[in-house]
């Protein structure tokens, strides 16, 4: 099947999961960031736990189309920090602002518009940033599988169990604790 059609169908399911799981909810995102409502972090830990197992099971059979992003440390730390501020201020991330917009939420639409502007501003300063943030301390497209040098699944199994244990047994909502 055509990859465009596959992309569209996968996207439909992705959007539906984010909506149904409450990921496009300001209340749920800020609840997570204030460390009171663990719904979204538990959803993410479960997704990564299952995804990590799935991806490295595929890889075991040579069937995974992996896509590893390069680890240029300073660019990622700076970008991650700016992203974190934007996430807490808007209550959305790039994917959930798309879903929020599809629900007819105007604040999500403003985040979507801001995101297009943010990407444009980045394109203007990219040549400058490229030399001192993206080229320096670039470790390349490495994974912990490369670093440790074992078959991926042997790392994915304990990692997955750790995340699922965190989600299912450790993290608890902390509403109603304050006086």
């Amino acid at each position: 099947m055509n990859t465009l059609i596959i992309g569209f169908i996968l996207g439909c399911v992705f959007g539906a999961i984010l909506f149904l799981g409450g990921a496009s909810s300001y209340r749920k995102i800020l609840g997570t960031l204030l460390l009171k409502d663990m719904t979204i972090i538990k959803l993410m830990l479960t997704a990564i736990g299952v995804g990590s197992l799935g991806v490295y099971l595929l890889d075991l059979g040579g069937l995974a189309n992996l896509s590893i992003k390069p680890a240029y440390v300073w660019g990622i730390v700076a970008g991650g920090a700016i992203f974190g501020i934007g996430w807490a201020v808007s209550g959305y991330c790039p994917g959930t602002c798309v879903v929020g917009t599809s629900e007819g939420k105007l604040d999500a639409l403003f985040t979507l518009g801001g995101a297009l502007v943010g990407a444009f501003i980045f394109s203007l300063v990219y040549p400058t940033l490229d030399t001192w943030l993206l080229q320096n301390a670039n470790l390349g497209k490495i994974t912990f599988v490369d670093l440790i040098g074992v078959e991926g699944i042997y790392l994915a199994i304990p990692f997955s169990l750790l995340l699922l244990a965190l989600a299912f047994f450790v993290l608890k909502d902390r509403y109603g604790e304050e006086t």
Partner: protein
Amino acid sequence: MSDNPILSWKVAGVALGLLLTLATFLVKPLGVSTQFVVTDAVVAHQVAPQFAENNTYLSKYGEKTDWSVGYGWMLVLGMLVGGGLTAVVFRDRQPEADQGSMPAMWVGQFGASRMKRFGAAFLGGVLLLFGARLAGGCTSGHMISGISQLAVGSFIFGVTTFAVAIATAKLLYRSTQS
């Protein structure tokens, strides 16, 4: 009406993990933030082709010969359609606190000004995509897909982003925190 999301985090989390696995098998892992650049590039190539060609970042995307509206862009279009259709079908079951453009939690802290909420949402969006492009990914590409693949850079992104976002949220809501 329940105050909880329609799907529990367990079901939504497992479904998202399986979706990521399927995507990795069929084409490649999930990612969203690149597609904002693609959209900008496609528009720029239409409105100001010379500018778009001279912009070293935009010229990598959305060229006239290859619109770069590929798998990733269709994925985001699908999110818009799939999210929208699901929202229409399940509207009655969405918790009331999660509906509308003015979250009650925001109004309680910052007031009912739509200008203020929409301004913050816009500014947040600018920071989100500037940060995501600098880091090379966002919640989907770095955190969900990248950490699942055990990528070192994605762990760095996840830790930094959560630390800063938690600190920012605590600062914004400091007066209501015990």
